[in-house]
Structures are given as C-alpha cells and as structure tokens.
C-alpha cells in the first residue's frame, strides 16, 4: 500500500524539522497507524517503518522484488500471530532492602558517618535495581513461554510517558492467535502474583516489532 506525500513535508530537511514537532509527529504517526489498521482488515500486513519514502513507484517495485524472499518469510512468520505489548512499572521503594537489613552504621566522625550513609543509600538503590530487574525477568520468561517471538523496546522516557518510578519492562510479544486468551490471562495473573509490579498490556498491535527488514548497512 502506497500513498503520495508532498516533498515539502517529507523531504529530508522538512521531515527532520517535523519529527521534532510533537503535534505534527503525533498526527502523522496516528495516520500511519490508522492506515495500517484498515489494511489489516483485508489481510496480513507487513508494516513498514513510519516515513519510509520512495521517490517513485519504480523504486517501490524494485524494493518489493529485492525483498521478495525476506517479505515472504516475514509473512509466514507473522501469519496467525498478533503483537501484544507489556510494560512493567515499579516503585523503587518497594524493592529497597528492609530497614532490618541495615548495613554499616556509626563512623567515627560526622563526616565519615555521612559518607557511609550516602554509600549505603547508593548500595540500596543498586540492590533495588537488581531486584526489580530480576522480577521483570521472571515476568518476561513466563510471557515468553506463550509467545512465538519477543522484542524489547528501551524503557520509555518518564516525562513523555508520564509515569513515576522505574519502567523495568517494555517488550512486545508475538502471540499465536489461539493463545491470545491464555496470554492476556497470564498478564493478569502475573499482575496479581506480583502486587509490587504494575503491569500494563497494550494491543492488539499490527506486527510492528517483528517485521523490520534484516539489518543491511550497505545497500547496493
């Protein structure tokens, strides 16, 4: 599926400027998403990355021919499967060591006591990181068992995504359609099992995270 766009908006320079304009980016990304969603109503789609622009139809045909094998394999991989997103948030305080596990105390002078306290706080934070990450890995492992493939996204910017605490999981799971219920029930179950973790499910998504072309740095 192709659409023509004005070079005045999608040429390299204007696009660069637009991509840093959040309202523009939001409108364009949602339009992209809408078109893919509609297309998905007619059959299996392989979404291309947002703002994939070819200068004319001939180049689109060339791309389709060149990527024929890759696209065919991708279609086979995503057919009958759906992408779901799972994010996990934690409040770092819930993962701090208990006060009972108190580390070093004292110190001969107020100065060293202060330094020891600072150090203990830093160690506590690292411990909390570690514990929260381990918890996220447990959740990831349980969900992976139900998925045909997984993809990791970086933790989202806290201001952009408007959350507090730590995002310890931001993954996509490609789930066979006959396991959809099992997968969503598993997310719910994990959320109940780990009350110190906030799990958020999103989807169904078109298979955005599982259709990227193979990395080929130097295209011919």
């Amino acid at each position, binding site marked *: 599926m192709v659409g023509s766009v004005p070079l005045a908006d*999608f040429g*390299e320079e204007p*696009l660069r400027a637009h*991509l*840093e*304009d*959040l309202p523009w*980016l939001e409108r364009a*990304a949602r339009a*992209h*998403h809408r078109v893919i969603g509609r297309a998905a109503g007619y059959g299996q789609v392989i*979404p291309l*990355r*947002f*703002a*994939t*622009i*070819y*200068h004319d139809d001939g*180049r689109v045909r*060339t791309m389709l021919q060149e990527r024929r094998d890759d696209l065919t394999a991708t279609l086979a991989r995503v057919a009958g499967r759906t992408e779901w*997103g799972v994010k996990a948030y934690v409040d770092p305080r819930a993962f701090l060591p208990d006060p009972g596990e108190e580390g070093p105390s004292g110190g001969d002078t107020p100065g060293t006591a202060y330094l020891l306290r600072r150090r203990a706080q830093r160690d506590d934070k690292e411990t909390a990181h570690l514990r929260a*990450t381990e918890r*996220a*890995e447990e959740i*990831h*492992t349980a969900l992976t068992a139900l998925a045909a493939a*997984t*993809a*990791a*996204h*970086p*933790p*989202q*910017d*806290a*201001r*952009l*995504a408007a959350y*507090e605490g*730590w*995002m*310890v999981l*931001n*993954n*996509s799971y490609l789930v066979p359609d006959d396991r959809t219920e099992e997968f969503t029930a598993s*997310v719910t179950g994990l959320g*109940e099992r780990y*009350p110190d*973790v*906030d*799990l*958020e*499910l*999103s*989807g*169904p*998504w078109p298979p*955005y*995270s599982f259709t990227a072309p193979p990395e080929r740095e130097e295209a011919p």
Partner: protein
Amino acid sequence: MTHAIERREVALVDLLDRVLAGGVVIAGEITLSIADIDLVRISLRALIASVRTEDMEDADEHRAPPGPPPS
C-alpha cells in the same frame, strides 16, 4: 496489578516505540530510512524538550535499569 487492556486510542509513546523502531529514548538519536538513497538521523532532544516540564530532575531518578534482553 494490571490495568488498561485495549484503550480506545493507543498511547502515543507506545506507538512511537513501534513505528519509529528505535523508540523514544531521552538520549537518543534514531535513524530513519528515507527513500532508498539516504539515511536521516534525527535527534529527539528537541522533541523531548518540548514536553519536558521546567523541573530539571536528575534523569537517573526515572531511568529504569535495562529490561531483560529479547530472546
């Protein structure tokens, strides 16, 4: 706890994670393939700046440790 299955409108950040395939990372630069001719590197710093509130908190406070790797 679990919440929010299938919002009516998808969250923009979740969408950008997927359609920009590089995600919106605070430090980030992403590379978009534009045409078959060149790559455009854009910086999302300005984008992030446009939604950042004036309080300049330590970014570390909000950065999670890296999640588990994809398998």
